[in-house]
């Protein structure tokens, strides 16, 4: 008998989250993320956690932020329409520095779109959906096992950087079942938020020591009272109109992600060592890309895959490091060209970037990608 278990991507998100310490889930079920709410409702009471089905997505994210401020690791899950509704409070979580994980199992949009069909059209929304300049960390898994391990990382990053972390899934991975051998609990690395307990010099709840970016969290709801707000605030947590303090605050919020990309950003590369053509992709799209790369390699073509696992911040440095060896790039994604913009920004005019996308709710196949590679070759490659 094999030790593997059959698990769905959405189920793996819940199991991984619980392994990471998630003990609170508030959500409003929506296809194709519904199994995450269902499974959380079953599993959380078994581990002493709380599940609440809220009246809508605005309330869901608000409850998650409240639970996290009060000390629990908290998560919600939704799809495009619900993700849109969560944007205002997502920004609140970033401004007030409240860790949490928000799962978006993307489906075809815009609006209610094709409820049960895959897409990756929320990539730019994940970065710029909420208003104002704000830090964003977003991760995107491409298999059931990676959903499990990567959502643990999402919680770890949320705790470490005190910020909501977006977990950008898609219907392909969310609704797919695979046999997986989960890591042993003792092999997992689980981060806890840095706490401060009203002692010593750091009396202020948003006090940040010189040279650091992340304030330790004071327990909210017991002990000393303090203020949490979405307004620009000083170290005490109370609103301020000081342009100096506001400017410093927003810069620090951005810096805590931008100055730590070495820690946050991860990519997966396959067959890139001698690749002349890099296929860039993320999430479930990687499944078709892998088959296309294997088939192209079998035909003697020097093709490799470059897959951002951390999709925000975009791994521009890692991609640029590959440019000298590359003759061309092909971006493949289930949208009309969103990560493409980041690839073009990283590559500039140095190498041609081609694009294969889809917005009809169907899945890009290995054949589609191979046809595109052939078409690029026949056209003598765009310059």
């Amino acid at each position, binding site marked *: 008998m*094999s030790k593997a278990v*059959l698990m769905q991507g959405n189920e793996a998100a819940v199991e991984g989250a619980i392994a990471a310490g998630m003990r609170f889930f508030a959500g409003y079920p929506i296809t194709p993320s519904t199994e995450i709410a269902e499974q959380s409702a079953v599993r959380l009471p078994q581990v002493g956690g709380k599940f609440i089905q809220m009246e809508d997505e605005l309330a869901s994210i608000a409850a998650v932020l409240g639970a996290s401020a009060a000390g629990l690791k908290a998560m919600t899950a939704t799809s495009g329409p619900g993700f849109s509704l969560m944007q205002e409070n997502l920004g609140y979580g970033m401004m007030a520095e409240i860790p949490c994980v928000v799962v978006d199992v993307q489906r075809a949009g815009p609006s209610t779109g094709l409820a049960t069909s895959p897409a990756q059209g929320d990539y730019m929304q994940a970065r710029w959906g909420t208003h104002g300049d704000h830090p964003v960390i977003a991760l995107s898994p491409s298999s059931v096992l990676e959903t499990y391990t990567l959502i643990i990382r999402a919680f770890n990053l949320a705790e470490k950087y005190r910020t909501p972390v977006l977990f950008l899934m898609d219907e392909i991975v969310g609704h797919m*079942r695979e*046999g997986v051998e989960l890591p042993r609990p003792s092999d997992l690395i689980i981060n806890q938020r840095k706490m401060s307990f009203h002692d010593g010099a750091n009396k202020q709840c948003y006090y940040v020591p010189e040279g650091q970016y992340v304030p330790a969290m004071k327990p909210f709801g017991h002990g000393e009272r303090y203020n949490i707000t979405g307004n620009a605030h000083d170290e005490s947590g109370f609103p301020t109109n000081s342009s100096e303090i506001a400017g410093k605050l927003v810069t620090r919020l951005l810096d805590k992600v931008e100055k730590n990309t070495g820690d946050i950003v991860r990519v997966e590369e396959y067959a890139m060592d001698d690749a002349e053509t890099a296929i860039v992709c993320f999430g*479930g799209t*990687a499944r078709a890309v892998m088959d296309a790369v294997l088939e192209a390699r079998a035909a003697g073509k020097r093709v490799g895959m470059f897959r951002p696992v951390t999709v925000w911040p975009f791994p521009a440095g890692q991609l640029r490091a590959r440019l000298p060896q590359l003759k061309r790039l092909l971006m493949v994604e289930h949208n009309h060209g969103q990560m493409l913009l980041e690839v073009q920004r990283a590559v500039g005019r140095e190498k041609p970037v081609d694009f294969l996308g889809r917005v009809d709710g169907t899945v890009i196949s290995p054949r589609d990608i191979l046809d595109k590679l052939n078409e690029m070759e026949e056209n003598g490659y765009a310059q």
Partner: protein
Amino acid sequence: MKGRYELRFAGSGGQGVILASVIFAEAAVISGMKTVQSQAYGPEARGGVSKAETILSREPIWYSKVTAPDFLLALTQESLDSYSKTLAAGGLIMMDSSLRLPEGLDPAQVLSVPVLQTAREVVGKAFTANIVAVGAINKALGLFDGETLLEAVKRHIPAGTEDINRRALDAGAELISPEQAAAFARKWG
């Protein structure tokens, strides 16, 4: 078995074709094989076309969707008409015997089996049709041993329904004659 098998299960929402597909994936996991299972359906809770797919392989599986299945189960005319067109060369179809054989199909590649009627009249519950189908498919294709398949079924049914599901599984297997099993198993080999 050859390297990779792609199975597609199609019917109308509520017939349980997704569960049938999951059970074969579970049996594959129990047997230590690689498998990927996925499904596509409309927004309806009942009715509409429902399609589920299981890929079985000894090698790692990347692309998770089936393009040209080696096997198709069709429980409705609509799903039979539409998905019988995309079968792999040499692919096999199991259709419910209440359906009409679409034009252009070679009868030698089609097994017509009274899945729905058996669930209703022999097992006594229409909702066991998917498990009847699982029993029939496994017998016809010779995929997994009986113990593995039963364990896979048990992992996906509510407690207290073991007996009726076991009867459904057996009733499905009995729909396939040894000659049919031999004929189909050869085509898999």
